[in-house]
């Protein structure tokens, strides 16, 4: 029965009881009187009727007042107490259990508060123990996460359904379309791997792995190369992992960017083929002519001269063609897999420290442009520099050297210079063949090996007229390609990112009806938007969208979406006061036609969650036509869910809900801040809803709808 119904019933009962007693008594008294006396009484009553009605009305007012008081003091207070108690269970200590009402209930609230505090303390104690063991687990996880982020390769693990369970930053950078990791990457926990890799590729890989297993291979692996964003080629190496019954539980992919490698490999191959092809014909001609000359020494003079000329001409053509081929492809021939692209300045800084420490000489570093890159095996090259500095000191007493670098065509000149000592060319020639020895350390490599490994050259350079006293060893090394920040990943994330979620392992088939799925099992995107104003139909526009993913009951703070949008219309000053975004901040931001498709992709396969979702959904709906994206997934509204979970409480503003549920309210009125708050509040509401018997998505949607209509009527 509704509260109003209950109220009316109580008043009626009390009123009727109040009327019934005097009337019944009066009737009993009148019944035993003589008929004449009865007539007198009846007349008296008729004459006093207005007074009687007045009395009855006074009684009614009295009854209503009494019930009103009783209701406030007991019924409403009890309902409020129940809600507060429920909140206290969900978020202990967040809000004090204090109610206004009858003294007994106030006392009861006090007792419940004490009981809650007691329970809280007990829970804390057991939480402490749980936390300890969790901390241990956490440490293990952190170790794994650290290990993964240290790997040069990308790592991606998916379950048998192709949902991503684990990945590292490298994998995300390799597979994200634009390479900047802040962009909404399609790599995310619980996302489908098929949006990243051609489905058939993965199916084929699984088939191959299963075949290998059928053949009895203990640790089958397979690999394939697939295109990724930005025209890159990524090599995927796939290895299966097995479940408890040895069934295929998922695949571990290691990823490496092979764009450059493949290009170089192809280039080298084409050099080989081109040299072979170009050389074959002239060599054949020379050989045939030469063999004729050798086989038939008595041929006539004319023939003889013809064959000799053929040999001379073809030899010349041959040497030209080989020369040309080598020149054209010298870069490809020189490129070696052991070389990495490195900033010259970084290399010299490392060398500076090592030379100072190992060769024990003073080192001056020339100014070197940041933009210089070289292709280098940095370890052996630094060894070579240390070795040369040490020899200069030992054999020539050099105490101070200079390091510098500059560009020379497609190469880079790297100098190890000194003043004073006159070093002969023969010294360098001798040192080149010696193993690199610095103090007690000796490398198996010689200086010449190091130069060859780089496809470089080394010589003694003397400067100026009096240059004998100012000289350097000059290395000519291949220039390198600048490595963009996008591919230099790792060690950028300060807090441990939520890049893994092993609980996803347990996820069942996605084919089940979504409505029947438990709220706790679904993936969500909690989002919020800031707008130019409050009237979408009147032309107000979205100016920022913030969103965060929720997977397996965890808010993934590393999987966020945050974009500003150029609204192409002036801002409403009142709204600007709320969100603090001004026109200057929006100038040059992408338009809604770019942002919404990206956001749509970010939300794929998730249920949307927003506070007062109807408002946000209206904005999205109005943009369907111009952006060609439709947000068709189910939507849950924290405002409605809060009203379902805590019907006795009146305040369901986001801030109020968050406070009641013990979510710290920070970063409000930015789209992302509110999205995070909404997400946290939502996660706690799910617990409260379960207590009210609302466990599946379908039940939550239905309850929301009922509350919505209830609120509309209200």
């Amino acid at each position: 029965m509704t509260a109003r119904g209950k109220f009316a019933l109580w008043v009626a009962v009390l009123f009727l009881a109040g009327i019934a007693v005097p009337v019944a008594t009066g009737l009993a008294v009148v019944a035993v009187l003589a008929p004449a006396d009865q007539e007198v009484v009846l007349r008296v009553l008729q004459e006093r009727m207005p007074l009687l009605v007045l009395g009855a009305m006074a009684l009614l007012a009295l009854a209503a007042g009494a019930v009103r008081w009783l209701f406030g003091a007991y019924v409403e207070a009890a309902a409020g107490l129940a809600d507060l108690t429920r909140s206290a269970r969900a978020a202990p200590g967040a809000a004090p259990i204090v109610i206004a009402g009858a003294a007994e209930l106030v006392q009861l609230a006090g007792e419940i508060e004490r009981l809650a505090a007691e329970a809280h303390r007990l829970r804390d104690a057991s939480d402490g123990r749980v936390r300890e063991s969790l901390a241990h687990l956490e440490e293990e996880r952190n170790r794994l996460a650290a290990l993964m982020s240290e790997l040069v390769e990308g790592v991606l693990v998916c379950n048998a359904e192709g949902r991503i369970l684990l990945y590292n930053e490298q994998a995300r950078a390799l597979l994200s379309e634009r390479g900047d990791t802040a962009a909404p990457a399609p790599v995310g926990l619980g996302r489908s791997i098929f949006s990243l890799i051609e489905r058939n590729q993965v199916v084929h890989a699984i088939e191959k792995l299963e075949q290998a297993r059928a053949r009895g291979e203990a640790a089958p692996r397979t690999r394939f190369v697939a295109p990724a964003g930005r025209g890159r080629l990524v090599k995927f190496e796939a290895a299966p992992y097995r479940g408890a019954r040895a069934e295929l539980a998922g695949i571990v992919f290691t990823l490496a960017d092979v764009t450059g490698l493949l290009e170089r490999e192809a280039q080298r191959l084409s050099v080989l083929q081109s040299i072979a092809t170009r050389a074959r014909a002239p060599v054949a001609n020379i050989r045939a002519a030469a063999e004729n000359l050798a086989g038939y020494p008595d041929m006539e003079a004319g023939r003889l001269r013809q064959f000799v000329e053929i040999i001379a001409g073809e030899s010349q053509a041959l040497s030209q063609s080989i020369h040309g081929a080598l020149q054209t492809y010298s870069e490809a021939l020189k490129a070696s897999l052991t070389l990495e692209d490195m900033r010259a300045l970084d290399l010299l800084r490392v060398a500076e420290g090592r030379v100072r420490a190992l060769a024990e000489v003073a080192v001056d570093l020339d100014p070197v442009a940041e933009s210089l890159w070289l292709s280098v095996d940095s370890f052996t090259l630094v060894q070579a520099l240390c070795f040369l500095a040490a020899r200069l000191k030992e054999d020539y007493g050099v105490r101070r050297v200079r390091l510098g670098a500059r560009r020379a065509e497609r190469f880079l000149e790297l100098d190890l210079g000194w003043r004073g000592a006159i070093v002969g060319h023969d010294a360098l020639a001798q040192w080149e063949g010696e193993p690199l020895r610095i103090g007690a350390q000796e490398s198996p490599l010689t200086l010449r090996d190091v130069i060859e490994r780089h496809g470089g050259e080394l010589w003694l350079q003397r400067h100026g007229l009096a240059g004998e006293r100012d000289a350097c060893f000059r290395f000519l090394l291949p220039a390198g390609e600048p490595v963009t920040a996008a591919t230099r990943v790792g060690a950028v994330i300060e807090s441990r990112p939520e890049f893994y979620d092993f609980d996803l392992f347990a996820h069942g088939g996605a084919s089940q009806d979504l409505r029947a799925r438990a709220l706790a099992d679904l993936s969500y995107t909690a989002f919020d938007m800031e707008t130019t104003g409050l009237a979408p139909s009147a032309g107000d526009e979205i100016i920022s969208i913030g969103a965060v993913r929720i997977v397996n009951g965890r808010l993934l703070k590393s999987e966020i979406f945050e974009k500003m949008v150029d609204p192409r219309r002036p801002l409403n000053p009142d709204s600007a006061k709320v969100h603090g975004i001004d026109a200057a901040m929006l100038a040059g931001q992408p338009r809604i036609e770019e942002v919404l498709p990206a956001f749509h992709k970010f939300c794929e396969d998730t249920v949307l969650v927003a506070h007062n979702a109807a408002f946000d959904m209206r904005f999205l709906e109005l943009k369907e036509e111009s952006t060609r994206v439709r947000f068709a997934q189910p939507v849950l509204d924290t405002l409605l869910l809060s009203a379902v979970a805590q019907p006795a409480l009146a305040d369901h503003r986001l801030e109020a809900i968050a406070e009641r549920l013990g979510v710290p309210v920070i970063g409000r009125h930015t789209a992302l801040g509110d999205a995070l708050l909404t997400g946290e509040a939502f996660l706690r509401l799910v617990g409260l809803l379960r207590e009210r018997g609302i466990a599946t998505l379908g039940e939550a949607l239905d309850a929301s709808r009922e509350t919505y209509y209830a609120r509309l009527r209200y």
Partner: protein
Amino acid sequence: MSKRVLIVDDEPNIVAALEFLLEKNGYQVQVAANGEEALARLDEFAPDLVLLDVMVPKVSGYEVCQRMRAQPKWRAIKIVMLSARGREVEVEKGMSLGADLYVTKPFSSAELVATIGGLLSPQT
């Protein structure tokens, strides 16, 4: 009667050497500088063997080979393909199209003569 060999190649230097070599070994030799000319010569010259370079102008060596094998009257003519391209796939292609032999440049003159002799001897 001496056997006839048709050399199909556009490089005069190799043609000169091969022509000289084969004539010294008692063959009757004619030269075609491209694939089209080679096909035109087949009926009139009626060679026992064609020494066919893969890279000849107009009609490629592969195509000459294919067309010869498509004609019953030319099926008995032996085909030795010569090529400066020695990748396995190319050798395989030549043999699949019906060549009796695929010789990669450079080659030994003595071996080539011996091979031709083998192909044209009545036992085979």
